[in-house]
């Protein structure tokens, strides 16, 4: 079986505390996986380890069965695009230029962007509903608009894998759904492997085929959405009383939090 990403016993420590503790999992090519878990469970750190922004203390991450650290940055950027949580940009670039930067891994150092690149950028901007912003300055537009611009930049990279760190956290419900619909479409039509950290369990349940539930840097469980989204699993991770039911309109599982449980200590 071909895996897009797999990890072999990865561990990450910050000072002496262990953030990610010996994680082993495989992501099949073309799957849509969300990583959920309470605050401080290591979701963002895990994503950064997969994106090669942090290096593992122990263990290795494999992309297409090849060690992450054997890739050149440009090679890696062709395989994998990343949408970070912090999308601030230091000086005022035009939105269009920012998206165009996504073509960098495909260009040699002195190569100019061609018509093909401009076309790809235009498509990426249409898909994310940002084309009308193209002449605006990146720091003049709203946080939600900027988020979509950064997603457009990731799309322009035309990679087979996209990692996203809470891509919907600064968006209103309209654009939350729009972004997730877009990811779903990319996943279905272009077979892009999507791995997203999401805070919102209901959105995770509705859009992803598989869920990885993290707790204190360990994998509590990983599998099909229905298998992971059980009261037992979620109670253990979130220390909450809750009900899980199937939403009559979306047909997706949804969590209704009831009360906070006392932490057992």
């Amino acid at each position, binding site marked *: 079986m071909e895996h897009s990403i797999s990890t072999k016993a990865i561990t990450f420590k910050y000072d002496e505390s262990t953030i990610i503790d010996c994680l082993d999992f495989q992501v099949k090519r073309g799957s849509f996986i969300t990583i959920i878990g309470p605050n401080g469970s290591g979701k963002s750190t895990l994503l950064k380890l997969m*994106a090669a922004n942090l290096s593992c203390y122990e263990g290795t991450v494999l992309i297409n069965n090849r060690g992450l650290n054997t890739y050149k940055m440009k090679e890696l950027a062709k395989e994998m695009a990343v949408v970070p949580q912090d999308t601030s940009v230091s000086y*005022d670039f035009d939105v269009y*230029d920012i998206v165009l*930067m996504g073509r960098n*891994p495909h260009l040699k150092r002195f190569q100019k962007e061609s018509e093909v690149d401009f076309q790809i950028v235009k498509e990426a901007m249409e898909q994310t509903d940002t084309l009308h912003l193209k002449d605006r300055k990146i720091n003049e537009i709203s946080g939600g608009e900027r988020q979509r611009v950064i997603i457009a930049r990731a799309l322009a990279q035309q990679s087979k894998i996209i990692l996203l760190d809470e891509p919907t956290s600064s968006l209103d419900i309209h654009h939350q759904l729009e972004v997730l619909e877009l990811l779903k479409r990319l996943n279905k039509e272009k077979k892009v492997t999507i791995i997203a950290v999401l805070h919102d369990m209901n959105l995770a349940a509705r859009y992803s085929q598989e869920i990885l539930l993290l707790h204190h840097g360990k994998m509590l469980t990983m599998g099909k959405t229905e298998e992971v989204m059980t009261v037992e699993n979620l109670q253990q991770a979130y220390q909450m009383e809750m009900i899980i039911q199937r939403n009559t309109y979306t047909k997706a599982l949804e969590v209704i939090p009831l009360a906070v449980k006392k932490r057992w200590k």
Partner: protein
Amino acid sequence: MGNKLKSPRNLLIIFTLLFGVVVVASISGAANITAINSIKIILSRLPFVGSNIDLSNIPNSHRAIILNIRLPRILLAFFVGYGLSIVGVAMQGLLKNPMADPFIMGTSSGAALGAAIAILMKFNLVVFGVGIVSVFAFIGALLATFIVYQLAKVKSKVPVTTLLLAGIAVGQFFTAIMSFIMVISSKDVTSIVFWTMGSFASRGWSHLQVAVLPILIGTIIIYIFAKDLNILLLGETTAQNTGVEVEKVKGIILTISALITAFAVSVSGIIGFVGLIIPHIVRMLIGPDHRVLIPASGILGGIFLILADTLARTMISPTEIPVGIITALSGGPFFIYLLRKSKSTI
């Protein structure tokens, strides 16, 4: 990207401006030389057109003043301003910090200390055409840059406040050591003032020869990384995920910046604020794209320093004042303006 800015019209404007400033600078001073004559003398040294220009009715003394005294000094001012501005652009982009510049980063002070040590220990060796003085300046510049960068870095970011604090501390410390060494060895306080505030007094072709090639090569190398500098503005991790070898680029740019600064300082002393003001003005005019920003800042920085130097030698003539006074007079208020503007983000 930025095509509207590279139009021939703008290039024409900037080169006309440059030529005009060179001419104005060449006729300012005690000897009364007309602009026409000065242009003729300068053009006579150019290849191809040079042989067709008739200099017979221009006094020899004027030719000597322009060619041996003013022209090399003007060119040197241009290349120092050019180099320092490009270093400023590169550092501001790399550290995503609007306050970065070779003076504030302490790079210039490090270079000056290195050069002063070599000069006072009478190391006059020349290896492969590179003077030991420049080598020492380079080592000093690298050391200062490295210390300031390590001190100012918070995780992978370099915030404005820590950069200013670290830069001032290290820069002043290096300058103090340098002044001390100079006082005990020469007792000539004036030369210390000129060295720590920068000056082109009595600089000639030999100085230009030392500095011009390293500065040019250095800036070309920085230009090669223009696209990477653009992408780095999105943040280091994002740049990495977009295919930039961040650590490698950072190492190269900081080293080359130290190199350019070292050669600039070893022929002119510490000239502050050029690398700070010019990139900002140019960025306001043409935007942040480094592919245009780097060359434009270089040329504008050169023009600025020619003007500043002309003021420095003519303002209270025949006494020269350090050119650093002029750049600080214009740069100081600008620096305060920048600080006020970026206060909200600190």
